[in-house]
């Protein structure tokens, strides 16, 4: 296993996902590019239905059979995922790439103890004894902050609260020391008080164990706290990607700026003032989609927005817009 730090761990180019429907083809994800280096956290943000979850399932090779996946490149540390066999994908899944899902209440099998499920995660990929796997499970349960870990192994998922279950799911994802964790809205289904704890735990552990993470969320507050890199997704496209500080400090795409105006910011938002909203709805992606998908809601849309949209910006911070400055000057933002 080469540990080349100069090459991305995961490099995706031109990922396209089409879903054939009776009414026509749904272009759910339309040619997205991103790179993720070892130990980095990439947050993908966007509204529901923007294609975030599908993108993560596409990397895992867990898409429904009816979804057509195409990509110029989906390179995971030298393995081309688009050409990997089922066997190769199975060997990667849970071992080098782990996934954490949104619903802790239903993502554990109700018929088996959490011990069985944790042990299985390790023994699917390592030929270790049950006792060794058990010891590892206890170690990780303690790491994710579960008290009396050894006695929890015999418990069933229905005996645990949502927060505890999500801790178990995180422990399960870490069993094989993966290099990449894909977390699909891991805190959305939890109580607000628990959300922050679980998120902190996830971020601390990934940093501690030097695991790269793709964190999918629609919560910009979360992104601001944990992301190294941000990808803003709109209607199946990554409309803006870049280092978190740059995207938050100087958002280039009109949609990113719209999103940021929707959340209150300390010291920026006036007390009693109104938060921003983005008028309109996400366009249908069924049939041929041309031009910028955001133009129906963008205050700066022109004729040109219906045509080919150029990729702007430098290598690390890029966005898709007909305006060279993403219409920042039109909005009176500093250049």
């Amino acid at each position: 296993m080469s540990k080349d730090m100069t090459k991305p761990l995961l490099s995706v180019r031109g990922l396209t996902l089409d879903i054939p429907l009776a009414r026509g083809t749904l272009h759910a994800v339309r040619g997205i590019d991103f790179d993720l280096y070892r130990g980095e956290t990439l947050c993908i943000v966007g509204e529901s239905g923007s294609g975030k979850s599908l993108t993560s399932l596409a990397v895992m090779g867990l898409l429904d059979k009816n979804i057509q996946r195409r990509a110029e490149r989906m390179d995971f540390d030298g393995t081309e995922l688009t050409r990997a066999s089922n066997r190769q994908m199975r060997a990667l899944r849970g071992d080098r790439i782990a996934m954490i899902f949104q619903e802790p209440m239903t993502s554990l099998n109700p018929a088996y103890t959490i011990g069985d499920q944790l042990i299985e995660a390790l023994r699917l990929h390592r030929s270790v004894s049950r006792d060794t796997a058990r010891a590892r499970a206890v170690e990780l349960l303690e790491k994710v902050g579960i008290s009396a870990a050894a006695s929890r192994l015999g418990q069933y998922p229905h005996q645990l609260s949502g927060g505890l279950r999500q801790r178990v799911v995180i422990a399960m994802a870490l069993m094989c020391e993966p290099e990449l964790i894909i977390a699909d809205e891991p805190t959305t289904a939890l109580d607000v008080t628990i959300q922050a704890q679980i998120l902190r735990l996830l971020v601390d552990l990934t940093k501690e164990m030097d695991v790269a993470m793709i964190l999918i969320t629609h919560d910009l507050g979360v992104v601001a706290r944990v992301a190294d890199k941000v990808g803003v997704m709109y209607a199946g496209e990554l409309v803006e990607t870049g280092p978190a500080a740059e995207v938050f400090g100087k958002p280039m795409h009109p949609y990113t700026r719209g999103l940021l105006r929707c959340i209150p910011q300390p010291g920026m938002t006036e007390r009693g003032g109104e938060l921003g909203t983005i008028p309109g709805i996400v366009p249908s992606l069924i049939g041929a989609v041309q031009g910028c998908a955001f133009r129906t809601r963008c205050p700066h849309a022109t004729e040109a927005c219906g045509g080919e949209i150029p990729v702007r910006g430098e290598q690390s911070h890029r966005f898709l817009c007909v305006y060279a400055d993403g219409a920042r000057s039109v909005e009176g933002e500093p250049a």
Partner: protein
Amino acid sequence: MLPFILKRLGLAILVALTVSFISFSLLFLSGDPAAALAGETASGEDIEAVRVLYGFDRPMLVQYSEWLMRAVRGDFGESYYFKLPVASLIAERLSVTMILGACGISFALLTAVPLGVVAAIRPNSIVDRFALFLSVAGQAMPSFWFGLILIVVFGIKLGWLPPSGASSWRHFIMPTVVLGYYAMPAIMRLTRAGMLEVLNSDYIRTARAKGAGEGRVLFKHALRNAIIPVVSLAAVQMGFMLGGSIVVESVFALHGAGYLAWESIARNDLPTVQALILIFSMFYIVFTFLADVLNAWLDPRMRSS
């Protein structure tokens, strides 16, 4: 697990007692038993004599407790018709019925569950359509007619299997198929529906995300959860097969307990009917209890509720 089993056992005993009382009461619900026994030409004195002879003049609860005590020891009295102990009469017939029931339910489960699983893995495929066709045909076709068709084809035209009787294992093949095919459609469709639902659940996606292979996903993670309602259904079907295989037993001239029940009802042979009702109900109770225990083992959530 043990408190659950004890609770269910207590419940089963209560149900059994209730059922035993009802089956005992049948004797009185169907008119004056003494008059029925004494015959149509009997005088009033004759009837009274019979009443005293059989103890029908005593309080009902006394008679019930006596009858129950004897029944627990396996003494169900004497058949009015055969003038033989009911217990030995039934014991002789029950073995045929039990073999047939066990074969029938095994045949049903062994065809229905795999077919249901395959149909769920590939919905709307040829296998799924074939399974649907089989189940619709099974539900639509009366057992006696299917039995007769088998007899005509395999018993008479081809001469492969004996058309009636119970003297060798070959005699049980056609009855097993007919009885099993009766139970198969419901089990198959329940398995298919359960698997379809479970395969779309989050924990199956989790299992795949862990890197589990398809076989493991299907059999370890999915089937165990999908089979739970099937267990309950199979228990009821099994009870039905033991008690209600009258049609199949008649068609193939297998003189089992179902056939005996039918005959005894026609002959007004109340001790035999009582005993059979009691035994058939006990089968239901025992199988339901076993299904509950099996389900509790399969599904830990059931144990705590």
